């Protein structure tokens, strides 16, 4: 069996939609189970009051990282065939900032907004409508944006290549970073627990 299945023609376009649907259902289920269908929980991250987003994301990263490393080591997965998207340095920094600002203001990221919509949240409906409007706007402005979007293309970069470290060393560093982050997350939560997000730091008169 040749992986990746879709790219090498194991199933066609129609079947790929079904596969995507099933994976999407699974993804959405676990996001909802983690509490990510709630804008309050999600934005709690940005006020350091609820670090669940950080914990869940870094747990996923560490799980996938260790899994891929050991499966690659055992010869089960050919790591050279795992898709790595290109690094477009400046557009990705700009896009990341935009996403962060939108996340903080709107309370959702694209995936979690769909999860929240599925549980019937009205704010998510507005958010998803905004996504489609935004897609339309980007599509119409694309001829002017295309040059920027593909600028500073550094190709397929991975941390071991950039840091000139063995893959295993990077795995260890990321695990240390995650564990340190989990420990720090608890401290941050305790420190910011009482702060009201609506409070802009002004003393009540």
């Amino acid at each position, binding site marked *: 069996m040749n992986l990746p299945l879709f790219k090498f023609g194991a199933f066609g376009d129609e079947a790929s939609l079904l596969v995507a649907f099933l994976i999407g259902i699974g993804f959405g289920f676990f996001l909802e189970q983690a509490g990510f269908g709630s804008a309050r929980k999600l934005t709690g991250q940005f006020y350091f009051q609820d670090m669940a987003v950080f914990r869940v994301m870094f747990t996923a990263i560490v799980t996938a990282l260790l899994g891929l490393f050991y499966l690659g080591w055992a010869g089960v997965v050919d790591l050279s065939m795992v898709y790595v998207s290109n690094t477009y340095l400046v557009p990705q920094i700009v896009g990341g900032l935009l996403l962060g600002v939108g996340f903080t203001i709107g309370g959702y990221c694209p995936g979690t907004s769909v999860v929240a919509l599925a549980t019937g949240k009205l704010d998510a409906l507005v958010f998803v409508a905004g996504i489609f409007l935004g897609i339309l706007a980007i599509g119409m402005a694309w001829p002017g944006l295309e040059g920027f979007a593909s600028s500073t293309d550094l190709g397929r970069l991975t941390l071991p290549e950039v840091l000139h470290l063995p893959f295993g060393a990077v795995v260890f560093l*990321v695990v240390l970073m995650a564990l340190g982050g989990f420990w720090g997350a608890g401290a941050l939560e305790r420190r910011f627990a009482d702060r009201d997000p609506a409070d802009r730091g002004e003393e009540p008169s």
Partner: protein
Amino acid sequence: MSRPGDWLARRNGNQRLALVALLLGAGALAIGDVDSGGRVTLDTRELAAIVEGELDHVTPEELADWIVAGRADYRLIDLRAADEFDRYRIPGAERVAIPDLLDAGLSRDERIVLYSEEGIHAAQAWMLLKAHRFPAVYILLGGLAGWQEHVLYPVEPVADAPIAERAAFARAAEIARHFGGGPRAATTAGAALAPALPTPEPPRIAAPVAPPAGARPAAKRKREGC
């Protein structure tokens, strides 16, 4: 008095998971690198089965259909010399010399179609890529000569040929014209067997040719990611 067992028993589930992650991470540090880049592995029995089953072939007609349909899920690699490539190339082809093959930015998750003049270089390049664990490498059957023979200049069937054959030819002729070629008249009954016809100079690929009716516009290269 405290044994490691007691210490472990006092940890909660999250702390135990963190410990597992830490141990696995330390193991990864000890293992170092997973992929030893230049190593060559060959499963000769598997390769023989592929060759025997002709699973590694793409016929010129199939490739022509892919191009007309605007498929972008493969890379077409021309292995010939630069001047030959400049004179004529199959639409969408990129030129890569065999010595540069492994540094040409090909990735293992792509479907790669190779062609050369007749096919020998393509077969050698196929072996080279297979040895470096490229799983989806194909050879254009008959090379550029086969492309000329079957796609650019298909031979018209004889007058008393069955209907199905004549219908297939009508489509082949349309595709030939799409690529700037055209059908050849059958001179003798053995025309297809004896390609003694003077090889016509293939046309240069000029401005984009209008696709035949029913063809989808050329698709963009598939993008991935979230």
